[in-house]
């Protein structure tokens, strides 16, 4: 019986509380409507605010629950009224709900939730388009609302009301104070003053230079400016951007001018004024910044130092510290995706940007330090730096993927070591910036560089050597080839002798090295020689000695052979002196090649003139395809008879001419 009484009382109490709850929220709304709207429509959400939710202690009170129900009702009503399909009707509960919410919110007598109720009132008024009323209400009420995030949110709505009642500039100021950049852009578009990111930055520089969303806009906009500047497009715009940055940095409103100063320095450097940029950056460096900006400042500082420093020992010491930092950034940030992209090769080989920290290292070292180092007369060190910049990522990737140097049995990753050890195409070592520098610089510097790499002295040199690719075969083969190109066969032999026998097979040009440079026709060697370059150098040296010390016939023939060898090595057998003949044909017309051709012709003619023995002369003419000469002057020699008896074309020519020529 007692239990029954308790149950009945509980049910009654529940019923009473539901009614009381409903009446407490809104005496005007039917309970069913309230229940449907508040509890059945949506899961509870407060997606319009970044306000911390109410404490559980407050939430569990009647006051808290009432507020939550009202707030939710507001949210739901606003969602409906904000729909493009919404149209009021005479009996539509939405408008009524919102009116009711305004009344309820304004009549709140408590203090705990004063700001939150004010927010609900503002939101409801805004939805109903009661802008002037909101303004009037805010004028009376704002001082009573405690400061905080909620009040800042209310200001957003008040700003909207200001805008819609003609106070556009005031509205923009409000938005600027609450850092609502999106609304600023919206208003500017409505006012017709929006001109892309530039107009926003210009406004922000004056009114809200510390807006937290500005870095994103700055990044986006100035990146475009940088690209245009590199192509010499819209240079004037860089100056305008710089002015905005300085205006913002010097604005008394600006509490954190570091990003503006950094950007101004960046832009000044873009305008070709690194000294001024350095001074501006120094101001930024004295200020505390977040991690990203601190890192960015450091990178810019290293770049500016590289541009303005005198390249002496002092700078080299400084450079070492900077390179250590740059190197550490690459190592620390290396990821699977960066490693895979590196090994794929295409992006790295073509200098495309894909991994910020290595991109910056290459940009600074290859773009600025190396050329300035060469200007300062320190070419071997420049080469070492280029080596480091181009090869460091490859080496780090390998140790990242195989830290214990144990290869994956499935062979998932092909590292630079694999590439260098196999007889397939090596897309790195013969096409990167480092190689291009070595292939174009005077061979003297290559020799010096080799010495430096074998015996580094300074800390910087040791640091670089430890992190670079210093394959002996690679360097010796390159220097030897350069000497062949210079027609210095004695020196060529010295370096080519230091190349291991199987190395030639690993070079990209190996398949072109099986051509005989002294052949009668463009014939291949019977078997590929693994030391084609060395053999060629040796033969040419032998001919050179004969040309100096032999008899007239020996001299003559040797000179002819040297001439043929030189000509071939810059033509059909180009692989003896060059590394490519597909992507860039410029070597075929450069001064060195032209000089070689001239030397070749001269040696051949001089050689032929010296030869007295007709048999030898005929042999030499045969190598030069001079059949007419053979037929005319050396018909009785062994070669002559063979030519005349085997060459139908010549025979026809001879008989047609009646044997006179």
């Amino acid at each position, binding site marked *: 019986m007692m239990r029954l009484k308790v149950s009945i009382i509980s049910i009654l109490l529940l019923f009473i509380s539901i009614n009381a709850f409903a009446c407490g929220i809104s005496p005007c709304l039917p309970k069913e409507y309230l229940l449907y709207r508040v509890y059945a429509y949506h899961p509870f959400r407060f997606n319009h605010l970044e306000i911390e939710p109410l404490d559980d202690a407050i939430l569990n009170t009647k006051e808290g629950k009432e507020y939550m129900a009202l707030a939710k009702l507001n949210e739901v009503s606003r969602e409906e009224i904000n729909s*493009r*399909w919404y*149209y009021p*009707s*005479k*009996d539509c509960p939405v408008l009524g709900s919102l009116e009711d919410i305004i009344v309820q919110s304004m009549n709140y007598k408590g203090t705990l939730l004063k700001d939150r109720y004010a927010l609900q009132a503002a939101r409801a008024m805004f939805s109903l388009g009661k802008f002037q009323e909101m303004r009037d209400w805010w004028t009376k009420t704002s001082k009573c609302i405690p400061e905080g995030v909620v009040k800042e949110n209310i200001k957003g709505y008040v700003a909207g009301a200001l805008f819609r009642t003609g106070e556009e500039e005031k509205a923009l100021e409000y938005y600027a104070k609450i850092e609502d950049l999106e609304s600023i852009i919206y208003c500017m578009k409505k006012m017709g003053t929006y001109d892309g990111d530039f107009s926003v930055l210009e406004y922000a520089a004056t009114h809200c230079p510390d807006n937290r969303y500005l870095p994103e806009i700055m990044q986006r906009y100035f990146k475009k400016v940088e690209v245009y500047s590199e192509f010499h497009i819209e240079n004037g715009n860089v100056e305008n951007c710089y002015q905005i940055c300085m205006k913002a940095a010097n604005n008394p409103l600006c509490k954190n001018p570091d990003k503006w100063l950094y950007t101004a320095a960046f832009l000044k450097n873009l305008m070709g004024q690194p000294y001024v940029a350095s001074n501006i950056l120094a101001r930024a460096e004295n200020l505390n910044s977040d991690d990203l900006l601190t890192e960015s400042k450091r990178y810019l500082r290293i770049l500016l130092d590289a541009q303005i420093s005198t390249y002496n020992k002092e700078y080299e010491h400084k450079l070492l510290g900077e390179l250590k930092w740059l190197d550490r950034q690459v190592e620390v940030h290396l990821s699977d995706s960066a490693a895979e992209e590196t090994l794929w090769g295409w992006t790295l080989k073509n200098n495309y940007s894909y991994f910020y920290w290595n991109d910056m290292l290459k940009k600074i070292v290859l773009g600025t330090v190396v050329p300035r180092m060469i200007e300062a007369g320190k070419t071997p060190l420049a080469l070492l730096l280029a080596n480091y910049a181009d090869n460091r990522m490859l080496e780090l990737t390998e140790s990242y993927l195989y830290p214990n140097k144990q290869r994956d049995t499935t062979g998932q990753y092909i590292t630079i070591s694999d590439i260098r050890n196999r007889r397939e195409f090596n897309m790195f070592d013969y096409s990167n910036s480092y190689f291009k520098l070595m292939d174009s610089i005077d061979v003297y510097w290559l020799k010096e560089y080799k010495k430096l790499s074998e015996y580094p002295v300074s800390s910087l040199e040791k640091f670089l050597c430890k992190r670079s690719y210093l394959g002996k075969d690679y360097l010796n083969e390159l220097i030897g080839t350069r000497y062949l190109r210079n027609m210095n066969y004695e020196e060529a032999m010295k370096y080519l002798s230091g190349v291991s026998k199987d190395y030639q097979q690993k070079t990209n040009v190996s398949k072109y090295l099986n051509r005989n440079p002294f052949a009668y026709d463009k014939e291949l060697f019977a078997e590929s020689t693994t030391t084609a370059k060395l053999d060629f150098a040796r033969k040419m040296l032998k001919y050179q000695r004969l040309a100096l010390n032999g008899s007239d016939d020996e001299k003559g023939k040797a000179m002819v052979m040297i001439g043929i060898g030189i000509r071939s090595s810059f033509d059909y057998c180009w692989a003896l002196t060059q590394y490519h003949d597909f992507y860039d044909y410029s070597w075929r017309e450069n001064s060195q090649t032209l000089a070689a051709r001239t030397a070749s012709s001269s040696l051949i003619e001089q050689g032929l003139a010296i030869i007295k023995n007709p048999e030898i002369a005929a042999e030499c003419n045969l190598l030069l395809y001079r059949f007419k000469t053979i037929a005319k002057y050396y018909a009785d020699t062994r070669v002559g008879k063979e030519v005349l008896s085997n060459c139908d074309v010549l025979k026809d020519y001879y008989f047609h001419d009646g044997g006179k020529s």
Partner: protein
Amino acid sequence: MSEKFFKKLKLIFLCSILCLFSCQNNNGYTSDSSPDCLFERTVYHWKTTFNLSAADSAFVKDHNIQRLYVRMFDVDAEFNEHTQTSEVVPIATTVFRSGIPKGVDIIPTVYITLDALDASRGSMFMLAENILKRILNMCSYNELGPVNEIHLDCDWTKSTKEDFTYLCSMIRKVIASKQLDIKLSGTIRLHQLEEAEYPFDSGVLMMYNTGAIKNNLTKNSILDYEDVYKYLSVNKRIKKFIAAREYNCPVIDVAYPAYSWGVVFYNNHFRKLVGNPQDYVLQEGETIRVENSEIETIQKVKALVDSKIGSVVRGNIIYHLDSNNLSKYSYDEIESIYN
């Protein structure tokens, strides 16, 4: 039997005869589903502001207009930058600034673009709900009277007919779910005459905008007898239409134009329409083709329509209520369209 009795009998007999004839249309066609035996005069209102001038009201009164097709809003698809998707939204909503003339029934009309149909695939029911709800709210809020009929205007083609038909069926479904008694009607364009089925209860055959407006060689895109003749002279098409009317859409009315405009071209390329061509100042390179709805053409076309299709069930319709244009016609000329 007294004389009085026979007089009464004559009167009753005469009245019966009169009633019998007035319930039949000219070609003897009758339909059980015909809503009203009396001809109803109707006019379209197609402006975005409903604010009848004195002249407009006078027109409605003088010509005994009983029904007004009032365009409420268009339905189009718009690209939402935030969601990066197309949204179907109402646009160009009519603003009501004046009341409805007494004794006139308002038929809410909605124009639906093909883009809207396309974007609504998969959510046609929601579109139907939105359209109906909005119409009802607008009528309620602006005190336009009870809604007995909804009129849809859509330039559907063979490829989009299925979508439009589905939309109509969804609207009917929503109407039924709300237990409302609302009929569905729609416009029929000349090129839609070939269709065997129309997805609404009654239709309005549009005898205007018959030509290609953007073609600089068109003589009159509003109404050209030759254009209409081309459509109505194909017997197969007419037979289909009449059959459709009989079985699928028994109530067909015809709407005639009473408006004019100027079509501006620039280097023979369509540039824009102007409502008052006489006030328009041509820019360099521009030409203007002034198009009118000549009463002689209207009457000629009306005679052709009557001969090919038969006269209407409810009444002819004039497009549209604009005193500036309607003032160009005399009282009798307007009456001749309605009669």
